[in-house]
């Protein structure tokens, strides 16, 4: 019998045996009434069950997926009031009729028995009572007023993974008078954004469809999956593009790519500097583009003389000859050649040196002259939606207090708009720069997405009011005073959004199953009770209609197709910006950056080693995404849980042998801030200095029964750090030891 050579699904085999045993005891099986019906099937067709998307008497609702943040258009098939199947909307440019595993599993989130079903009030450690919305608002609102009176409005922080209702969350904070709205950027993309903002005045994307030579520094397009990007990069490769992946681990993209370069973690910047060394030395760059569009070339050229491939080989573990070859191949393919700016990855937020590495990549891209070229980088100008202020009522006054984290202030000018959420527990515990007593969390689970879970929990216990808005009792909700259940994406409208030239609408496929509300109603309820109701005297439909007004359509009209392609003329430049091609101080691409220099960094990219150095049994913990889960939000989804119920610790074969660890052993992983237990995956596919753990597991909330305590959370191990210039959390600057415990 053919057996898979290496499968992660031993549990399925075990399941088959259990199934067969069950058969042994039930050979005289009696017909079991109602089972076909329970499974949604139709009997008597020669097949007991008809598939979901073909059976009759159904509605098909076009809407917008929220199983990740890529915003693919979907078609929800609804039969007898139930969503039975979700497919990609063929008319939607993001989805093109396709959907990933997570999107396909959406109805299992809608019908998850572990969902929040009504507002909950904490009545003891891990204990909650269901309460009415009225009670929730009438208790939370006055408490907010009281805290504002005592400590000032800045005592309230709102932490979010900014989703479509984010502008309404921000309005709530402005109306309350607090500057402390904060996203997840430092745990994701802060350093990348700072690097590209400084160099180009914006963060470009990659023309994946047409790229001919693509380098991914840790970016894992096939792990952190975005449907449109996957479709395009597959098409590009089929058309002959070369895909090169720098990653200490053979990620999904590295496995699929033409070439995987198993780089020493945290040294991607050295690799980029050496590529520039070769490209400048051998005059392989686009001299015309550099002369016309950039400033600081001479400074850059002088600096990268130091960074030869031989120098980089010692740092990166990539042979000098390989570096030279890659530099030549990359330059040969220009301008249809790109180094991915990344999201998370090497230059996103992971290392102390990510800004310098990101700057090196940004400068390298500029040398290739790829900006605006087919197959290069694209600086998009997003569609400008209508102005909703007319329907929203009075404009809130500007908050007067400084932010708690100093982002955008004198010390952290480049972190403006990014924030430093990872420092929140420290500031709460210290009471500095001022007392923070209340926290509202939405679409975010900082206990598992921010560093040092233990510290975060300790800080939450110091607060007088913690409110979490979510669809499930995640770890942070579990430590909150109030949990307010949002309707799932299949049960609610959201603010409309633009994707390229297309406007898309999220709309309900079914009415809310439980006593949940869409977020705009939750925000309005809180505002009313907190004495700032005058800022929320509008409906979401009025708000959406204002956003849609320039295009002559309404929310009601958008419902039928769920999306519409519109035309918009390019907007005139802002006053004072007419002469600037790029939103940088010089108006050019800054190979030598004034913004970085004035924030205290080297104006041209330089090599800075990572903060920590693995030695002996101390290994570097690295982390990343997997294709079947999104962050820490999907692990309780029945289909996705079955695909990947827990994560494993990837550890190199020789390191494992030295530590007496075998594949499948239970190991304890210890860092300076915590320890976790997890199964070991012994593999050749990782750099010996690193161990890898997929992000998103190790749920500590027993309310999520499938995923509770399955696998381990890297957040429990990562110390709170603040990387220079960007304020990023530098999560991969974590050293751990590993020992076998079972």
């Amino acid at each position: 019998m053919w057996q898979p050579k290496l499968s992660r699904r031993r549990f399925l085999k075990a399941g088959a045996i259990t199934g067969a045993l069950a058969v042994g005891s039930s050979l005289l099986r009696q017909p079991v009434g109602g089972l076909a019906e329970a499974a949604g099937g139709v009997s008597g067709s020669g097949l007991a069950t008809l598939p979901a998307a073909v059976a009759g008497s159904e509605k098909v609702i076009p809407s917008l997926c929220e199983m990740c943040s890529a915003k693919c258009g979907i078609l929800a098939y609804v039969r007898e009031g139930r969503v039975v199947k979700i497919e990609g909307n063929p008319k939607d440019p993001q989805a093109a009729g396709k959907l990933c595993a997570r999107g396909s599993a959406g109805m299992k989130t809608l019908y998850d028995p572990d969902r929040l079903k009504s507002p909950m009030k904490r009545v003891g450690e891990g204990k909650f009572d269901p309460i009415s919305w009225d009670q929730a608002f009438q208790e939370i609102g006055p408490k907010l007023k009281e805290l504002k009176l005592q400590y000032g409005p800045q005592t309230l922080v709102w932490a979010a993974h900014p989703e479509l209702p984010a502008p309404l969350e921000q309005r709530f904070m402005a109306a309350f008078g607090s500057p402390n709205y904060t996203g997840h950027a430092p745990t994701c993309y802060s350093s990348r954004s700072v690097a590209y903002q400084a160099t180009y005045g914006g963060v470009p994307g990659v023309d994946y469809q047409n790229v001919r030579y693509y380098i991914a520094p840790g970016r894992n397009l096939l792990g952190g999956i975005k449907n449109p990007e996957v479709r395009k990069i597959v098409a590009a490769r089929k058309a002959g593009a070369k895909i090169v992946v720098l990653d200490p681990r053979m990620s999904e993209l590295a496995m699929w790519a033409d070439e995987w370069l198993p780089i020493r973690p945290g040294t991607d910047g050295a690799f980029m500097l050496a590529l520039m060394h070769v490209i400048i030395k051998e005059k392989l760059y686009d001299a015309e583009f550099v002369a016309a569009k950039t400033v600081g070339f001479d400074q850059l050229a002088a600096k990268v003389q130091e960074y030869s491939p031989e120098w980089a080989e010692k740092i990166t573990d990539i042979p000098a000859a390989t570096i030279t070859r890659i530099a030549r191949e990359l330059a040969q393919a220009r301008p249809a050649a790109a180094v991915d700016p990344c999201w998370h990855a090497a230059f996103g937020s992971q290392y102390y040196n990510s800004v310098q590495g990101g700057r090196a990549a940004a400068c390298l891209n500029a040398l290739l002259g790829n900006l605006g070229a087919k197959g290069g980088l694209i600086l998009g100008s997003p569609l400008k939606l209508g102005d909703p202020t007319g329907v929203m009522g009075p404009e809130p006054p500007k908050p007067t207090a400084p932010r708690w984290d100093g982002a955008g202030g004198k010390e952290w000018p480049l972190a403006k708009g990014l924030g430093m959420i990872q420092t929140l527990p420290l500031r709460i515990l210290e009471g500095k720069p001022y007392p923070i007593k209340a926290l509202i969390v939405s679409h975010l689970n900082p206990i598992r997405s921010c560093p040092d879970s233990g510290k975060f929990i300790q800080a939450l216990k110091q607060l007088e009011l913690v409110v979490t808005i979510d669809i499930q009792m995640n770890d942070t909700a579990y430590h909150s005073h109030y949990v307010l259940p949002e309707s799932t994406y299949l049960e609610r409208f959201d603010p409309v959004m633009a994707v390229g030239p297309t406007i898309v609408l999220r709309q309900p496929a079914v009415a809310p199953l439980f006593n949940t509300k869409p977020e705009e109603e939750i925000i309005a309820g809180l505002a009313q009770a907190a004495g700032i109701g005058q800022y929320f005297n509008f409906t979401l439909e009025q708000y959406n209609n204002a956003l849609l007004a320039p295009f002559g359509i309404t929310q009601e009209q958008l419902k039928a197709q769920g999306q519409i392609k519109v035309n918009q003329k390019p907007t005139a430049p802002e006053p004072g910006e007419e002469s600037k091609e790029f939103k940088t101080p010089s108006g050019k691409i800054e190979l030598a950056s004034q913004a970085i220099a004035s924030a205290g960094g080297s104006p041209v990219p330089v090599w800075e080693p990572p903060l920590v150095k693995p030695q002996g049994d101390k290994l570097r913990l690295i982390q990343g995404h997997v294709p079947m889960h999104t962050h820490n939000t999907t692990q309780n989804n029945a289909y996705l849980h079955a695909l990947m119920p827990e994560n494993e610790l990837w550890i190199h074969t020789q390191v494992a042998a030295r530590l007496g660890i075998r594949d499948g052993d239970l190991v304890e992983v210890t860092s300076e801030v915590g320890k976790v237990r997890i199964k070991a995956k012994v593999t050749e596919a990782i750099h010996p200095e690193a161990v890898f753990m997929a992000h998103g597991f190790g749920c500590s909330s027993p309310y999520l029964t499938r995923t509770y305590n399955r696998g381990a959370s890297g957040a429990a191990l990562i110390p709170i750090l603040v990387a220079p210039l960007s304020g990023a959390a530098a999560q991969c600057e974590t050293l751990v030891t590993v020992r076998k415990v079972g």
Partner: protein
Amino acid sequence: MLIDLSKCVGCEACTVNCQAEWQLEPEEQFTKVHRYETGKFPQVKGGVVPTQCFHCHQPPCVEVCPTGASYKRPDGIVAIDEDKCIGCCYCLSACPYGARCFDSSRRIVRKCYFCYPRIEQGKEPACVNTCMAGARTFGDVDDPTSAISKAIKETKAVPIRGTSIFYVPSPHLDRSFLPPDLKEPGFVRWWKGVIQPGGKAVMAAAAGAVVVSLAINTINKGGGTGGDADARK
């Protein structure tokens, strides 16, 4: 069906979209994605291979089925009349590709039907429809003008002989990582001849044999990390 492993990204959308289409239990998967790695650091290669029912030309599952629930349609699709299935699991063990699964709530065996109700409505199978990579092509291989016939020719796809599945191998993995051609295992004939004519007592014994064979397969699995295709049959 043609599965192009130079395109397949291993995202498992096929697995889940199929589950949703057929409203399967989470543990029931008609199509699965296997991952491989081979070589020593830093010279490591890897790849993914999705599998499902191979819709064999002479399906062992149909031959062993005591009730006729497993059958081959005139169009070549191997199907199961779920009303006739008694859940004895002979087929599950007879399948050389491990493609069938036991629905524990309904106590029947189920598997990929190539989504023939969708095909009859002019739609593609769910796995093909959702594949972001465009790695799957479905169609009539007997029609030389069909998209799949052209794709097989263009890509020099490898047929899994005796079945309805073709693969374009991953550039990183050799043929031995693909499922083998269909060769009817000897024990299937033995079963059909010896067990099936017997009564229910014999069937109970056979069910025991299924358990043992599955257990042996599971134990054997640990060693199967390399070698040629024959070694794994």
